[in-house]
């Protein structure tokens, strides 16, 4: 167990280090002087130089990289060029929308997909299975932002059950916040749930063909008992792999969906930052997104070990 954990942890740290280098390098090759850009075309050369010194842009690259990483590790993400406030503050405010939205969608997707996949596998080759396969095939093909637009048209504009967009803030109460995130989460979750349900189904069917299921049936278990006691846990291993990948899709999807619902999340922050060339915000937000994906990969690895004794020795 300790060996497995250590190897996963090393891989987590190496991935983070390499990813941060890549992001830093990409931002570095961007042409143009940030300080000059911030001060506008008419700035005096000496004011530009002063700002460069203030921002630390005159330091060598290796030092700037270390300063950036060191800052991130201590929670200091730098100061936004345009907003003139610490990037950490900006991001944490936006994260309060994006993170709950992603998790909400992930929970919805899992809660729908696992039972649906189970039913389809248990009734494989029968009408219920065909119906589920048909609906999920369609679900995969629907772009989530278009689905979101249709949801708004139906539930917000026509039925007026939800507001068409915006976020009241968590100060307005948990319920109000969740309600504002419900349509976006549904829009995000349904296509992913379709994929996950199909994975669950095929993983279960694959497992049901294994020798140990035949052993279980020979012991007198009914098919339902064999699924519950033996097939389900084995099928979870591929399902978890997909679940881990879906987190990054949901995170990216959330950035797009925020646009449909005018949610003040990371997505809106990042798009504004790109248009205003607020590179430190872009850099830090991207690093944060990548960190989240790598962290989830690590958590999935831990979950494998929780399920599979062969990894625990």
């Amino acid at each position, binding site marked *: 167990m300790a*060996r497995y954990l250590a190897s996963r942890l090393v891989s987590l740290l190496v991935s983070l280090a390499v990813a941060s280098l890549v992001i830093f390098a990409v931002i570095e090759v961007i042409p143009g002087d940030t300080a000059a850009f911030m001060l506008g075309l008419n700035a005096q050369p000496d004011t530009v130089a002063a700002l460069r010194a203030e921002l630390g842009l005159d330091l060598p690259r290796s030092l700037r990289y270390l300063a950036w990483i060191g800052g991130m590790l201590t929670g200091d993400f730098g100061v936004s060029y345009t907003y003139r406030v610490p990037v950490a503050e900006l991001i944490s405010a936006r994260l309060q929308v994006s993170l709950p939205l992603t998790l909400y969608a992930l929970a919805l997707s899992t809660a729908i997909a696992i039972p649906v996949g189970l039913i389809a596998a248990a009734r494989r080759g029968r009408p219920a299975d065909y119906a589920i396969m048909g609906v999920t095939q369609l679900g995969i093909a629907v772009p989530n932002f278009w689905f979101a637009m249709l949801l708004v048209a139906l539930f917000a504009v026509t039925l007026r059950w939800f507001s068409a967009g915006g976020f009241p803030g968590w100060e307005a109460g948990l319920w109000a916040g969740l309600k504002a995130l419900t349509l976006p989460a549904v829009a995000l979750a349904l296509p992913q749930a379709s994929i996950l349900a199909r994975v669950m189904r095929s993983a279960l069917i694959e497992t049901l063909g294994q020798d140990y299921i*035949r052993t279980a*049936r020979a012991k007198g278990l009914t098919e339902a008992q064999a699924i519950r006691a033996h097939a389900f846990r084995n099928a979870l291993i591929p399902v978890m792999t997909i679940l881990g990948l879906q987190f990054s899709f949901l995170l990216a999807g959330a950035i797009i969906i925020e646009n449909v619902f005018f949610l003040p999340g990371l997505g809106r922050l990042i798009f504004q930052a790109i248009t205003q060339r607020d590179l430190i915000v872009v850099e830090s937000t991207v690093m944060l997104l990548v960190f989240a994906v790598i962290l989830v990969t690590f958590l999935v690895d831990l979950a494998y070990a929780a399920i599979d*004794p062969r990894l625990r020795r």
Partner: protein
Amino acid sequence: MLSIRDLSLEIAGTPILHGVSLDVAPGKVFGLVGESGSGKSMTALSVMRLLPQGARLRGRVSLGGTELTALDERQMCAVRGARVAMIFQEPMTALNPLRTIGEQVAETLVVHGAAPRGEAMRIAREKLDRVGLAADRFDLGRYPFELSGGQRQRVCIAMAIALRPAILIADEPTTALDVTTQAQILALLESLVREEGMGLMLITHDLAVVAGMADEVAVMREGRIVERGPTETLFRTRRHPYTRALLAASSHVPKRAALRSAGAPPVLEVEGAVRDYPLGRGAVFGARGHFRAVDGVSLAVGRGESVGLVGESGCGKSTLARAILGLEPLQVGAIRLEGAPVDAARGVPGALRAKMQVVFQDPFGSFNPRHRVARLVAEPFHLVGRPPDWRDRVAEALQAVGLKPADMEKFPHEFSGGQRQRIAIARAIVIRPRLVILDEAVSALDVSIRAQILELLADLQGRFGLSYLFISHDLAVVRAITDRVLVMRAGRIVEEGPTEAVFAAPRHGYTRQLLAATPRIPEDWLAEETRHGA
């Protein structure tokens, strides 16, 4: 106790079984033998009613007065595992990898409501003790991956006997196991039958296993029982021609021309070969350990000679074969082919490689499914450059192995397992090598096909002056076709000598153990071959 009458089975319209009738008595072993596809496993699965979808069953199966064919799926679940239990061929995959052995044995009891969980675990302990997995080494909390194949098969048996079923069906229970492990598992099954009064239906392809264990035997072929009777009587009289053919094939010894030229230098020499494999790292940055697969092996194969290399799985015999073929480097030692060094680390020249070829076990994985036979057989020409008359040479090789030149245009999937093995042999001889390594080359074949292939190999050896290194776990096969034999264990050669001498009077304890564990049909049962033939 278990009585099957006129059982017929169709799967998706294809007839599988035709009017099978048999009885399994309590405290007795009933042997069901047949080659692959004869329907012996399907007979067992019909009793269990664990048939694939689209199966239609007719006839009667009664178990202690209960007519099983009349039961619905729910009632059948109550019978399976409680009154009739089953173990399968492949112990490595028969257990759920994610649950402990204790849980899996106890499950039989829990699922039938025979005991609450705690009590079931206590009984599971008893049953594991009974099958020879003692508490000090085999805790209930161990997982299948921590156990060997033989130990896993014992867990499967414990699971099957947990509720003391009246009938136990064992479908090729030892086919995937080494011969010494096989002997232990068979002894365990036999003691369960005698001591607990259980009826055992033993399904196997191996006539020798049945000869040693069964009270009564039925021979199956193409979904029918062709002959049935008390074991000794059946073996002695062999009324049905198929039984006769099967027994003849199983003890077939091909005639071989004595072709050894004494005093000539050996074709192959191996001197002090050592092959290590790195193990996984102990810690992330720790040093790697090594596993020594081949440990100081020396051997020689003379011109026209057949040398057998026997040993159980994991003894290093296949690794040695790959090293000889120049596919893996040695850490220590040397390999010489007709005096020239074979050194995988430096690269082996094509002309040298062309002096040796190989035939593998698996007739299905041996060919690129997208290539035609002509191209497959011609592949070794890559070593020496394809001659202009290559198609004629391929045709010639195909004819030499008993196939037709027209088969050149076919794809491998158009052939049976035995025919594919012939193609593999054609590929091996097409460039006229000196040495052919046969790595378990007949192990996957049914006995009748195996006899034909052995006959072919003996014939080719005489015709082309080939030397064979015959690698096998099967002592009977090695005895039939080799002049000299080497016994390998844990990377070392423990005994070496002329085949008949070693088999008649083994010197090393391990050889004796191997021979004792090998099931054999008593010689006198097979004598008087002519009694019914004439």
